[in-house]
């Protein structure tokens, strides 16, 4: 019951949702304390105190009760409002009511209308109760506005909008108007502004809740005026839209795209217009508050006070929108709307013309992102999604997709499962990045699937088919996110998938996007499991894609074959390495190889000797990652010395690794990663190796492994630059140290820019067919050439976006000059432990060009 910090009147009560952690419960000894004596029995006889009851009802509002849909949500909320009002004299009750209602608003957006209803009910009996909640909510709103915590602003505005029956006049509308003015300021200042867009989105998403709670003509008029103003901002195409389109048109027109592009706010603007035309039915927003009937009151057990005659109204507290608003929320790009199911033949989710589409999506996405710390709770709410909207908004849970086609005559065909899955995928497919790690969304999908497999699995199946069908048009980064999710998801469900459906694609050329997807996905599956197991899950025609050679744990040593040049030298070296022989003996063999190579006229004789050396190290360490790492660690000086001698040698190290582990690309990627950490190879050498040496007339761009190597390498350097920025902005460091860091920044930034430039050059030349090898070789192979050029375009698009994001975060304009802070007289403080380490790291890598910290590895 650790969800509540302070519990004064109830040791074991709690509204907390206990997730599927029964395995831990069994182990736990925490219960022992309670077991002696008759504690449990005593508790059973006690009546639950009001504070605890209020907490539980509020936190669990509208949820399923013991696996069943709730029967009387309004009744429960009305009771809780009344209970709070009646016990308002109890300080604890007051604190609980205010704190819990606002906490639920902040963490569980789906329940906001229900929290508002509870407060409205309380107001019927005791206006102070509502007044106190309003005061707390507006002060939190003020704070959030100050901090630029826009999601919190949005949720609190929604809550206050739902409370509008409480307010005398315009209520929240002036705040919305002021927010809009700030949005206009931001928009005028920059055409690339995204915060202003976010503010408009908040305004637009508040309006429906406002009107649902108070549909007086005065409010409607003011909203109409507001909508007229937002129109210009909301419908103007954004200059960065093109970078976040999940289905960028590659030489195609809009018609043939799987999904029309829509900016989120232009979509909401249109939906609201549509709703205005219909007279604001806002049918999906639950109305959980009915003014209490006074006649019934007289029969009740409370004494009917005079003030109950009509609901008490309140003045709207002062809320000031700061000017200018805090505009550094990290939101760099406008948001694109993404849906796998919308606007298709069968309406299994709200159409993009309907306001429910945006309202439900927004609440679900926020729930998922806020409650990322308990995926069990999130999946429970997704599973019960229909509870939180007007009854009848959705079709019954677990209704089969095929049955929807039979529904006629205004009955809803929206499947709660589809709406939930759609929202989760919208996050996995969010560009440039979602709020949390992708695996966060994977884990929720897994959990939802575990809760209701029969209901969710078919929805997922349709999602997968939809994406797979037009995977060649999908943004490349998203394609790899999808591949990652697909393999990870299957690994949680016995690797079951209807591979039969894709049999027809096996004969396609290996570089065909669908075929490349299959290859990549199978490799990812094998990495999480093992080849033999994955082969068992595949139908016959796929068996050939997982050859028996993949089952070998230790790859063949290529120098075991006498036909290989330098075979005997390599075998001798291998023996020495195993014996941990002296440096001189090893060097003697390497020198021998180099001399032989020179006499054979090899252009860079260091290349064969490096290959021999690296391949032997890999062989000695082939038993596991720890083995190879401890060997690299032991020999890192020697390896570094080799690698610094020539670029060709550095690239040869990469070649040796990738070729040795050609059947287990995951191991190769890990080892390259470690070599980068040890600064034995440079990030640029990886990029050059992948996009020049191994470009293979552009075919490399179809390989998941190449994408992985390139993106991991760039991500590493990018993380490094951000780390520098973070330390530079660290005001706990003395200013002169920060100046030292500031001096490092331009070089780090340049390293990163060089990588992007190199990638751009390489892939752009493939995209337009001007790559050298492509010019030579392509006669009569038009189809293959077209496919390769498409890969080039897709790569270019990804890396241009990433470069733009990077500039927006680490570019000179974004970073600004380092300014010495005003000296603050402060008492001596303990130095931060990491401070010196951080600086040591900078000094250690000086000159290594974007090098990474050397890390200690287990041997």
């Amino acid at each position, binding site marked *: 019951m*650790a*969800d*509540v*910090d*302070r519990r*004064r009147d109830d040791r074991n009560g709690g*509204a*907390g*949702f*206990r*997730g599927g*952690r029964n*395995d*831990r*419960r069994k*182990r*736990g*000894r*925490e219960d022992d304390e309670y077991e002696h004596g008759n504690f449990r029995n005593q508790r059973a006889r006690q009546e639950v105190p009001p*504070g605890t009851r209020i*907490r539980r009802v509020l*936190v669990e509002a509208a949820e399923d009760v013991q696996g069943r849909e709730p029967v009387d949500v309004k009744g429960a909320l009305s009771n809780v409002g009344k209970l709070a009002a009646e016990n308002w004299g109890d300080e*604890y009750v007051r*604190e*609980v009511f205010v*704190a*819990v209602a606002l*906490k639920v608003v902040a*963490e*569980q957006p789906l329940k906001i209308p229900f929290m508002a209803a509870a407060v409205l009910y309380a107001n019927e009996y005791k206006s102070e109760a509502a007044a106190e909640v309003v005061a707390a909510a507006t002060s939190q709103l003020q704070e959030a506005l100050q901090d630029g915590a826009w999601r919190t602003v949005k949720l609190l505005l929604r809550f206050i909008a739902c409370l509008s029956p409480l307010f005398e006049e315009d209520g929240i509308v002036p705040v919305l108007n002021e927010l809009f003015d700030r949005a206009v300021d931001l928009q005028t200042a920059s055409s690339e502004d995204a915060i202003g867009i976010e503010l408009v989105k908040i305004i637009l998403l508040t309006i429906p809740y406002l009107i649902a709670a108070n549909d007086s003509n005065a409010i409607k008029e003011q909203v109409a005026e507001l909508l007229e103003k937002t129109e210009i901002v909301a419908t103007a195409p954004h200059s960065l839209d093109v970078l976040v389109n999940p289905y960028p048109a590659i030489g195609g027109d809009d018609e043939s795209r799987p999904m029309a592009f829509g900016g989120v706010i232009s979509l909401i603007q249109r939906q609201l217009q549509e709703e205005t035309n219909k007279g604001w039915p806002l049918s999906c927003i639950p109305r959980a508050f009915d003014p209490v009937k006074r006649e019934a009151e007289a029969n009740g057990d409370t004494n009917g006070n005079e003030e109950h005659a009509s609901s008490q109204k309140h003045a709207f507290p002062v809320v000031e929108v700061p000017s200018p608003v805090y505009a550094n929320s990290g939101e760099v790009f406008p948001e694109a709307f993404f849906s796998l199911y919308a606007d298709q033949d069968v309406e299994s989710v709200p159409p993009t013309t309907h306001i429910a589409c945006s309202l439900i999506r927004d609440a679900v996405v926020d729930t998922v992102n806020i*409650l990322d*710390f*308990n*995926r*069990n*709770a999130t999946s429970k709410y997704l599973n019960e999604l229909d509870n939180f909207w007007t009854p009848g908004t959705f079709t019954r849970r677990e209704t089969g997709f095929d049955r929807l086609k039979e529904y006629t005559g205004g009955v809803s065909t929206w499947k709660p499962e589809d709406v939930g899955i759609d929202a989760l995928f919208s996050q996995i497919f969010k560009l440039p990045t979602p709020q*949390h*790690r*992708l*695996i*966060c969304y994977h*884990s929720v999908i897994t959990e939802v699937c575990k809760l209701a497999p029969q209901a969710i699995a078919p929805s997922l199946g349709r999602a997968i088919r939809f994406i797979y069908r037009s995977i060649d048009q999908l943004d490349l980064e998203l394609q790899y996110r999808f591949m*990652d999710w697909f393999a*990870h998801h299957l*690994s*949680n469900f*016995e690797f079951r998938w209807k591979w039969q459906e894709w049999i027809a694609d096996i004969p396609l050329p290996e570089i065909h996007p669908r075929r490349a997807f299959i290859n990549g996905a199978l490799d990812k599956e094998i*990495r*999480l*499991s*093992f080849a033999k197991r994955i082969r068992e899950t595949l139908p016959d025609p796929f068996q050939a894609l997982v050859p028996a050679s993949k089952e070998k744990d230790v790859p063949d040593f290529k120098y075991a074959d006498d036909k290989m040049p330098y075979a005997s030298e390599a075998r001798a070296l291998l023996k020495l390495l195993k014996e941990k022989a002296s440096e001189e003996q090893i060097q003697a063999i390497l020198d021998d190889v180099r001399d032989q190579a020179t006499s054979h006229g090899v252009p860079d004789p260091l290349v064969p000797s490096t290959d021999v050396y690296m391949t032997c190290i890999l062989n000695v360490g082939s038993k*596991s*990652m*720890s083995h190879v790492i401890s060997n690299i660690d032991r020999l890192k000086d020697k390896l570094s010395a080799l690698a610094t001698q020539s670029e060709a040698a550095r690239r040869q190290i990469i070649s040796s690794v990738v070729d040795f582990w050609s059947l*287990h690309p995951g191991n190769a990627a*890990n080892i390259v990663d470690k070599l980068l950490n040890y600064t034995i190879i440079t990030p640029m050498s990886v990029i050059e190796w992948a996009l020049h040496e191994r470009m293979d007339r552009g075919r490399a761009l179809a390989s998941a492994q190449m994408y992985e190597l390139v993106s991991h390498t760039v991500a590493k350097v990018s993380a490094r630059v951000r780390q520098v920025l973070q330390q530079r902005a660290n005001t706990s460091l003395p200013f002169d140290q920060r100046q030292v860091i500031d001096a490092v920044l331009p070089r780090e930034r340049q390293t990163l820019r060089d990588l992007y430039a190199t990638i751009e050059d390489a892939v752009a030349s493939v995209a337009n067919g001007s790559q050298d090898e492509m010019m030579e070789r392509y006669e009569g192979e038009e189809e293959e050439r077209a496919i390769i050029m498409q890969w080039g375009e897709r790569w270019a698009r990804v890396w241009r976006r990433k470069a733009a994001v990077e500039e927006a975060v680490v570019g000179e304009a974004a970073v600004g000059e380092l300014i010495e802070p005003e000296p603050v007289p402060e008492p001596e403080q303990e130095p931060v432990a990491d401070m010196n380490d951080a600086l040591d790291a900078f000094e250690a890598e000086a000159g290594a060009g974007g090098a990474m910290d050397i*890390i*200690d*590895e*287990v041997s």
Partner: protein
Amino acid sequence: MPKFTMQNTVERLDKPSSYAMSKYKKRRRNPAEEALRQTRGESPDLATKLSSACTLYIGNLSFYTTEEQIHELFSKCGSIKRLIMGLDRNLKTPCGFCFVEYYLPEDARDALKYVGGTKLDERVIRCDLDEGFVEGRQYGRGRSGGQVRDEYREEFDPGRGGFGRGRDQIGEEYGQGQ
């Protein structure tokens, strides 16, 4: 009385497990420990200490699950600093647990939230925050060399060496005691 505060509306999955907390409490109740505390002063409590932990204990792995598989899954939550396989004290073979150390405590907590309780190699694995690896902890503490839990396990688990390994042995000892 302090004001009522509510940290979250639902339980957090990124806290130390009740198992870790109970072991910690048990240790604190130990008189020797208590005496030490008297002399050395109070050390920060476990929850505080673990809030900056970068290491995770991973349990209920199959004996056949490899470092590479673990790495593949856990690297989805951040860059891994090191990975230490739990080994049978006598055989020096994997015995179904490991330690994963990240560079950042946030990454460890992410793994706790998103990976703990999901499957790896088709087994539901267990994750717990850990105070940090110390040489020696990579070995099983059971009588047979493996993990203690495998000695008392009565059901057959093909991924963890069949039936509980110490069962017969322990049974005999109990027999002698009677």
